[in-house]
């Protein structure tokens, strides 16, 4: 059995999770602070990939990074390589698709963060950078990790946009989801079942991880006094 699809899937999902992790946190942190009107607008745009059909995302991506698209043609001209139909093409698709999951869970974590911790840190003279890394992030840790695991799972399961920009080339761009589809078309049920089983195992592990993180998230240590928080 050729294990390339598993290797490629994990590779693509890990790299795209790396990007969504930082992009999602960055977006969530800044958007939590923007005024309400702007917040709704930006939030809508950033969440769109969650509700749009993946083929629509794939279509947009092809128009941008395809050999005739503005980005794709420039890269081809200047650097001499294609952005589509290669193994890393899938990263563009999965990053786009999994971004909203990371962004929304991180934003939820930031919004439920007790802002008096931030304010008290500021009045104590602690820098905003220190407060972000040493106070906000540790206290939002579970939510942010849950978001990362979810976006990893989504990236692993992506099919629509990925087939459009990376296609299915055995040994080069094949991932688990496209392999299952191909095997079904060929009528190779035995092998398809094997990949389906592998997929189930991965999904089970991911969901268990999310559940564990969320249970811990419900009882953060040492915030027992927070319900006395009130605004005058």
């Amino acid at each position, binding site marked *: 059995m050729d294990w390339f699809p598993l290797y490629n899937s994990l590779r693509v999902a890990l790299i795209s999770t790396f990007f969504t992790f930082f992009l999602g946190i960055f977006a969530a942190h800044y958007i939590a602070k923007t005024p309400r009107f702007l917040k709704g607008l930006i939030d809508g745009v950033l969440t769109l990939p969650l509700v749009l059909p993946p083929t629509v995302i794939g279509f947009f991506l092809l128009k941008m990074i395809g050999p005739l698209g503005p980005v794709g043609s420039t890269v081809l001209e200047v650097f001499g390589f294609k952005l589509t139909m290669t193994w890393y093409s899938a990263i563009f698709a999965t990053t786009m698709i999994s971004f909203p999951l990371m962004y929304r869970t991180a934003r939820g974590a930031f919004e439920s963060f*007790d802002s*008096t*911790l931030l*304010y*008290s*840190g*500021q*009045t*104590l*003279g*602690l*820098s905003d950078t*220190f407060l972000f890394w*040493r*106070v906000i992030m*540790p*206290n939002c840790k579970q939510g942010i990790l849950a978001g990362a695991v979810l976006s990893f799972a989504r990236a692993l399961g992506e099919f629509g946009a990925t087939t459009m920009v990376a296609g299915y080339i055995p040994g080069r761009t094949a991932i688990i989801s496209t392999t299952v589809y191909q095997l079904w078309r060929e009528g190779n049920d035995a092998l398809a079942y094997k990949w389906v089983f592998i997929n189930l195992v991965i999904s089970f592990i991911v969901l268990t991880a999310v559940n564990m993180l969320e249970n811990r998230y419900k009882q*953060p*240590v*040492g*915030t*027992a*006094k*927070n319900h*006395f*928080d*009130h*605004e*005058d």
Partner: protein
Amino acid sequence: MSVYVKIKKSFGNFVLDTEFEAENEILALLGASGSGKSMTLKCIAGIVRPDMGRIVADGVTLFDSDKKINLSPQERHVGLLFQNYALFPNMTVEQNLCAVIKTCGKGKYPKEKLDILLESYYLTGLEKHYPGQLSGGQQQRVALARMMASDPKIIMLDEPLSALDSYLRWQVEKELTEILGKYKGTTLYVSHNRDEVYRICRKVCVINEGHSEKVSSVDEFFNAPPTLASALLSGCKNYSKIKKLLNGTVYAIDWKTSLNCSAHVPDDAGYIGVRAHKILPLGDKDNCVNKISCRVLEVRHDLFSVIVTVVPEDADPRKEFSQIRMELPSLEDDSLRPGDSMAINIPPEMIMPLRKRMD
């Protein structure tokens, strides 16, 4: 060290408009919840930006809308103790304190500074505990120690005792009073509890629906509150609208009777107030100035006193201010029932003339 504050900020219908000044003393900001006390502290700390005004601490302008000065919270060196103490839950007591000691790092000996703090706030032995493992009183001491570690020019406490159980509160208040007594700078103490303010503070600034009144001493505030809002906050229970008559008499509109009044009644006084425990019951035959014949509405037995609500014979009992509440140590006549008639005496020296609002 001193602080001067004059700020305006509006949120929809609510307008915060405060002005006060404090020297090296404990100034209470007293007001009902939602009156803008906490918001005032947040403006001073730099967390909320006022629409206009000026904040000066210790000679340094922290905020000035005309000169476009608005220092960041980090640059203000103003300590703010939050109601929930806002300790970092992911850090131990030691880490909470060290984060501040290292940043404010004038001292070359962070370890020594830490030990001094731990000792003077009775935290020795709790270094490795997380805030969630501490009692409310201990959390407050950590928060105070952490605030003092930042070497603030002024300190501000936002309802520091309200998050505690009532039986813990007395002990913590004692410790807090001791700590505040040692601090030599300006302290702003936000509270809605008059008893607490009376015990801890020497001066009071009443904040009523976003507007601050004139700063007064605690004694002045409790003995002769200048306005209706102050009197309400000082715990006075009985009020009547008045019309000023000649020779130190007023006509109490809500009680439908004329009263002699020892205190000078300003021309713009719109109300009088009388404390519940200053009103005396009278026998039918007794006679004196300011005798009012009343009807008993309710008799309630409190733990150590009896509260009798009466309404003057001629007044309309449904109107809020027409009822008079008396607090007596005990009741001579056990058979007193609602509907009975009863005479009361309001001594002229106990009547406090009140203005509607401070100018």
